[in-house]
């Protein structure tokens, strides 16, 4: 049996996961989320918060898993992409643990991890993946050794669009209540404002900054907020689903997944499901509990990478704030610890 401890600290969540390659696979899932009372996330404040919770989060994970550090075979850490100060906390903790206990250190790309945890939990082997989060909007699929980017946002990310709009019009923070985004709550009972918000798909790329500007202008001009929320969501979600559809047709793959912080969204899931069935593809989103950032996804990916021989010397474990998904070799593909 191989057991890996994974550390996530790329954005708002300090996560520690412990995973093994035998039932029940997931042994521990500890998360400490930084939630600003007002405004957005400040990297330095996040880093200070992470530093204050890191030690007890690791201890709690070991307790939850019922294993000692001696029984852990490797330590995995998300080295990027993400915010520098936040990444540095996770990397420092991981390097310290690995060095102190003499464990191999496994570098993990955060974006790859979002997809690997989806594959691991859904059982999909070779899907087209839509990865949507606060800082990412990317359509990827595996071709010749790596995840390749088929389409992405040319400016801001989908999660960023929702968060920024919600904050600007005063319906957030909190950004998420009862598992739904402020924009979703607000869109209840809204109508579609046809032609008021630009629908932008360029080839296989999307763009959201024009949507944000148009939506804010509509609100300023006195449009009903629920109509604007409804329309913004409809236009933005439709465009990412359309790009995913193009990727599906272009690659001829038979499976589709949705992952990342926005993946729990009901309407987006509905659209993805309808699109997939149109092309007779199997659709399985990552389970909602693992859509947002967590340590388990880092541990799962670390486990696969470790067994494929991917490790890094602690002194060479640099953080990479802009580490692209298509720069990462994925030699273990398509197998997962479940087979």
């Amino acid at each position: 049996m191989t057991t890996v401890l994974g550390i996530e600290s790329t954005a708002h969540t300090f996560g520690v996961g412990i995973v093994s390659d035998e039932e029940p696979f997931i042994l521990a899932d500890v998360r400490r989320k930084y939630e600003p009372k007002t405004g957005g996330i400040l990297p330095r404040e996040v880093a200070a918060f992470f530093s204050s919770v890191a030690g007890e989060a690791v201890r709690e994970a070991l307790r939850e898993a019922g294993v000692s550090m001696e029984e852990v075979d490797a330590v995995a850490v998300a080295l990027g992409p993400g915010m520098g100060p936040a990444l540095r906390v996770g990397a420092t903790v991981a390097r310290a643990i690995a060095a102190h206990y003499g464990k191999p250190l496994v570098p993990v790309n955060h974006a790859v991890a979002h997809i690997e945890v989806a594959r691991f939990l859904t059982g999909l082997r070779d899907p087209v993946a839509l990865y949507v989060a606060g800082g990412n909007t990317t359509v990827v699929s595996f071709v010749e050794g790596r995840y390749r980017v088929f389409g992405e946002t040319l400016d801001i990310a989908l999660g960023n669009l929702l968060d920024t709009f919600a904050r600007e019009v005063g319906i957030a923070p909190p950004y998420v209540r009862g598992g739904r985004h402020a924009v979703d709550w607000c869109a209840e009972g809204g109508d579609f404002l046809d032609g008021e918000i630009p629908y932008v798909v360029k080839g296989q790329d999307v763009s959201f900054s024009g949507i944000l500007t148009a939506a804010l202008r509509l609100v300023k001009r006195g449009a009903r907020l629920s109509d604007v929320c409804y329309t913004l969501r409809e236009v933005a979600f439709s465009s990412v689903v359309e790009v995913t559809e193009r990727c599906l047709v272009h690659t001829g793959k038979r499976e589709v997944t949705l992952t990342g912080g926005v993946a729990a969204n009901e309407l987006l899931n509905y659209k993805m499901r309808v699109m997939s069935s149109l092309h007779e593809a199997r659709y399985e989103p990552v389970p909602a509990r693992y859509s947002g950032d967590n340590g388990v996804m880092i541990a799962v990916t670390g486990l696969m990478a470790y067994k494929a021989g991917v490790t890094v010397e602690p002194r060479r474990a640099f953080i990479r704030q802009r580490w692209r998904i298509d720069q990462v070799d994925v030699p273990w593909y398509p197998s997962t610890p479940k087979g």
Partner: protein
Amino acid sequence: MVSLDPERLVEDLSRLPLLKRGAESEIRLGSFLGLPAVFKVRVRKPYMHPRLAARLASQRTRREAKVIAAALEAGVNAPLLLAVLPSAGVLVMEYVEGPLLKELLAGAARGEAVKLAREAGVILGRLHAAGIVHGDPTTSNFIASPRGLVLIDYGLAEFSEHVEERAVDLHLFRRAVEATHASLAGSLYEALLEGYREVMGGEAEKVISRAEEIKLRGRYVEERRRSVWQAVG
């Protein structure tokens, strides 16, 4: 006999044999005024609000027809346009027969693959010189017909002379070959540029360097800000 009532027409067309189900539309094979013809039917996306889906379908049909007419006039190898019915989202075009460039590249020897990519570059150059950008010139949208490579699917094309949008075309071709023919991608893109330069002359360089910028513009591109790489501790 097909009806000209939009709803009836689409229903009638749905009985024709399906040639291809694209991301955008269904391509059905039939005949029109005695000629073998393809009927491109823009399916209203069932995952969109009906008004958004209808608007996109008719807008895109109308725009596609205008662009194809202009491309043909400029001597671009595009399918001949036979009829346009925007409210039904239907275009009727010449049936272009042959394998897709994507399929050909997969089986071709390096020399042949490079020749094809160069020909694609010439076509893209002619299109751009005519003031049109394609918007989705992937290797799935070139057909190798008896009369040479034909660039199809003008569904996302626009009239534009912007360096940015021209560069997006080059970028999309490059990304398509990187995605499906990764090991040959570099040579294929170089060959495309060779054909493109031949047509576009001095104007080509601005577009090519912008395409490089676009490649680096995606989120988290390390080349763009190498200086921020930092060692931990």
